[in-house]
Every structure is written in C-alpha cells, then in structure tokens.
C-alpha cells in the first residue's frame, strides 16, 4: 500500500503513530510530503504592488528567502524520516490543498494521511470547523482513500 503522509512541520508524531498502528512495515510504502505554502509569498507580492514596486523582491532577498524555505523543508522531511525510516521524501510548492491532491495522483497513492488542522491551530476537536480548509479540500478532491488523524483530545 502506498501511503502519502502530509506533513506540516508540527504533525509528524501524530501521523507516524497512526501509520505505525494501522500498517505493518512490510505492507507499506511511505511517502512524506511537505508543501511549501505559496500564500505568504503572494501576500508579499501584493504588498509590493500596493507600494508601486514590481511583484518580486530584489534577487538577493529572494535568494535568502529561497534558502530559508529549502532549509526548513529539508528539516521537516528529515525529521519525518527519523519517525518513519526509509520513507520517500516528496516536496512541492503552491497551495497545499491542491498540491496534496495532485501529488497523490502523480505518486499513485492508495491512502493519504492528513491531520484535520495543524496542531498549532487546533480549532474545535469535533463539529463545524474541526476540519481546516486544507484537509477539507483533500477530503473533497482526493483520488484515493483519506485517513484523517484527529488529535488525542477527542479521547
């Protein structure tokens, strides 16, 4: 079974616990996906346009931002590998919800494992708004089964 785990930099413990509980190591192929959200960069571009500048910051600044993004992505994926050794690392850039769905298709995932929200922004454990917009989009559009890993507080 090809399992695509969606990381956000804070949820690896929950994801790895769920995967380890449900699937034996010899029956699974794990993909660790981290999507670098392009939304904040869009906001920076909008700000620049408001102040009559071109959309992109100067080259040196862009490079600095790019390096920080890459370092952070590498960190998150390597951390994921410590919890789920041998997993394939996948990284994308764009709107997370769309990239997850697209990656699941491209990687031929059988199962997507995702948290309803970032543990840093938990929201209500059940009921309306308990599922954030990224997970909601994935649930609505995923090309395969989706495992929604809720927080421990529900117990």
């Amino acid at each position, binding site marked *: 079974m090809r399992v695509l785990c969606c990381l956000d*930099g804070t949820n690896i413990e929950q994801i790895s616990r769920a995967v380890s509980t449900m699937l034996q190591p010899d029956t699974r192929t794990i993909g660790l996906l981290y999507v670098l*959200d392009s*939304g*904040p*960069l*869009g*906001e*920076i571009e*909008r*700000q*620049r*346009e*408001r*102040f*009559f*500048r071109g959309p992109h*910051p*100067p080259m040196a*600044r862009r490079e*600095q*931002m790019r390096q*920080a*993004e890459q*370092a*952070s992505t590498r*960190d*998150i994926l390597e951390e994921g590998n410590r919890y789920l050794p041998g997993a394939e690392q996948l990284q994308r850039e764009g*709107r997370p*919800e*769309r990239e997850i769905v697209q990656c699941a298709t491209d990687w031929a995932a059988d199962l997507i494992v995702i948290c309803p929200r*970032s543990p*840093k*922004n*938990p929201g209500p454990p059940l009921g309306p708004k308990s599922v954030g*917009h990224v997970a909601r*989009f994935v649930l609505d559009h995923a090309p395969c089964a989706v495992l929604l890993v809720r927080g421990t507080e529900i117990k």
Partner: protein
Amino acid sequence: MLLFFHLPTLTKTLLISLVALLTLIGIMVRPFKLNEATIAMSGAALLLIIGLINPLDVLTTLSSDWNTFFFFLGMMSLSALAEAAGLFDWLAAQAARLAGGSSKRLLLNTFLLGTMITMVLSNDATALILTPIVYTLVTRLRLPVIPFLFACTFIADSASFLLPVSNPINIIILSSFRLDLWTFLRLLFLPDLVVISINIGIFFLLYRRQIQGKFDAKRLPSAAESIRHPAYFRYTCTALLLIALAYIIASALQIPLSLVASGGAFILFFGALLWKQITFKDLGKQISWSIFGFIGGMFIIVRAVENTGLTTQFGQLLIHLSGGTSFGAVVVGTTGSAIGTNLINNIPMAIVMRAALGAAGHVAPTTRLGFIVATIFGCDLGPNLTTVGSLATILWLLILRRRNLDVSGLDYFKVGILVTPLMLLAGALTIWLLLL
C-alpha cells in the same frame, strides 16, 4: 486644443469630471492589469492635450509640490541604502534574539521593530523590506508565517502617523496645511499609540494558538552575519541617528522634510559608494519611478477639477456633513478618507481631500484642524481595511470564490475587516478628545 475654442463652462466641467472619473475608475479596476501610474498619467495627458488644463498651470502645480516628490525620492533611497548595509537584517536578528525563544515575544518584537522602522523610515520600508526579512526568519525558525507576516503588513500602516515622516501621505497633506510638530504630535502621537496597542492586542488574541510555545534559538542567524561591511554599517547607523534627529528639528522649525530625506540619502549614498556597497544602477532599481508619474498625474487631474470649483463644493459638503463641529469633522474625515483610500488608493484620496479642505472656505479652526488630522489618520490607517489592495480587488476575489476557486487574499481581508474598524474607531475617538 480646446484652449483655442471657446467652451461653455458647463461643458468644460463635464469633460474634466468625466476624465477624472474615468481615471479613478481605471485606478480601481486596473483594466488589462495596467499600472496605476500609466492610468493617472494618461488622464493628465488627456486633459493637457485636449486643452482642459493650461500647460502653465501644470508646471505650477508640479513645481509647487516639489517637497512631496523629493521626499518620496529621499525616503526610498534611504531605505534602500540602509538595506544595503544589512541594517534591517541585523535589527530583525536582534529582535529574534531578544525574544529568548518565545514565539509570543517574537511577535511582540516584530511589532515593536516595525513601529520603530516605520516611525523613522516610513511605512514603505516596513512593508517592503522588513516583511521578507521576517518571512525568512520565521521560515527558518519553523514558526507559522502568517501572524508575523501580517504583523509587518499591519504595523506599516498602524504606526505611520507617529511622526510626519512616518508616511509620505503625511507630507502630501502637510505640504498644504502647515501643522507645527507639537500640534502633529499632540493630536496624532497618542492616538497612534492607542491604535498600535489595539493592533497588537487583537493579533495576540487572534493568533494565540499559533504563537504558543518556544522556538529553537539555534536556528537563528548570527547578527554579525547580517552585516555586510562593518565600517559602512557603523556609518549607516550613525547617519540614520543624525537623520532622525534632523527630521525632528526640521519638523519643529517647519523646514521642508524632503531636504532632510534627500540630504540624508545623499550622505548615505556617498558612504555606500566609498565602501563599494551599492552602485548608482542598483540604487535606481530599488526606487519606484512609476510612483512619481502616479503622483504627478493625480496632482494635475485634481488641479483641473479644482479649477472647475467641484472640489470647493466637495469641501463644503464635507463641512456640511460634519455639522461644523470638531466631532463631525473627525468622524466625516476619518470615515471618508478610510473608505476612499480603499477605493482609489490612499495617494489620490489624500490629494482629493487636500484640495477639498483647502477650498472649503471659512470654518472654525478646531473643525478645520479636526478634518486635517482625520484625513491624515484615515488615509494612513485606511489601507489596513483591505490588506489585499482595494475594495475592487476584494469584490473580484469574492467573484472568484463563488466560482469555487481558492483565494487566499480573502483570508487576509477577514483580518483587516476585523481589526481596522476597531482601530479607526478608537483612534478617531482619541483624536476628538485631544481636540477638545
């Protein structure tokens, strides 16, 4: 051309109004993604070509506003030269270090740093230079980006009426209405502190979950890493301190602030050339030249409208709506400027309000003062209402959302619509109390 033909006043007024209206609509809608400067300059050129404004009038209008043009030039150069020294990166690294690993304290320090930069180097520096630096920093620290990014976006406007130099809009308005430094500080400094406190308070409430916990300080870059050339860095710090002092003295003595901004930029540029930290070409790239076309175009269009007497009527309407009281002046001035600024951008709104108030005729001094201060306040803070740009953009985003397209801009709008009215209300109330 039409200068050679006699046109009835009414026809001339209608034609000028039509061009002005189309220009403002063009700025709001930006057809074919046209730059606002192109639209404003086209409107001004049209008025000039068809003879609805006298070329001499154009020259007089542009030359009388030299202070605004040179201030914009000086301000943008100062920020670019300070950035070349690595000052903003160094300050951000220090702010992060002082947070002691606490995400909450880092958010607070981002606000304080943004306030400090805006106060001395204007909102432009905070929004354009500090924002990507903070983005890089929080990405490295693996913290949620949005609260910190928004902190920069919001504080750039929220802190922009602490001093006359904190926002070029202030210079546009003060070029016509001379307020001494004491009056400016008396009526706007305290309201700005109130606004900044509300801004910080609401952000801590809104993002309380995201900013919980600690960050790993080992991920922070060293402050020394930010300094590209120690001698130029020291030179820049000393020069900026002197420039800040000169700003205060010039404001107190009512000396045009563009002289300090341009003079300061020249001093920094000299140092940058000496230590080979920037070239003339690089500095030129950091400056938004189109803004001069935009402001110039708007000055000409509003001048043509002024000639028709429409701005006088608009000014009288404002006075009438305010009921001639200082309370009314603050309410009408703030509301009108804040809404207008989201419709047509704050620069044209400030120019329109300036023309209207200048031609409004006799009003009580307190009411007049109330209008001037409220205009500065509304035009400076108003853009926070629709952080994505303008109400026209918001409407477009709403249409897109209806078509099931994911639009992140609306998420930003939600914060603006929640925070800004509260800040406008509290700030306007404080201004009114200070006017009494």
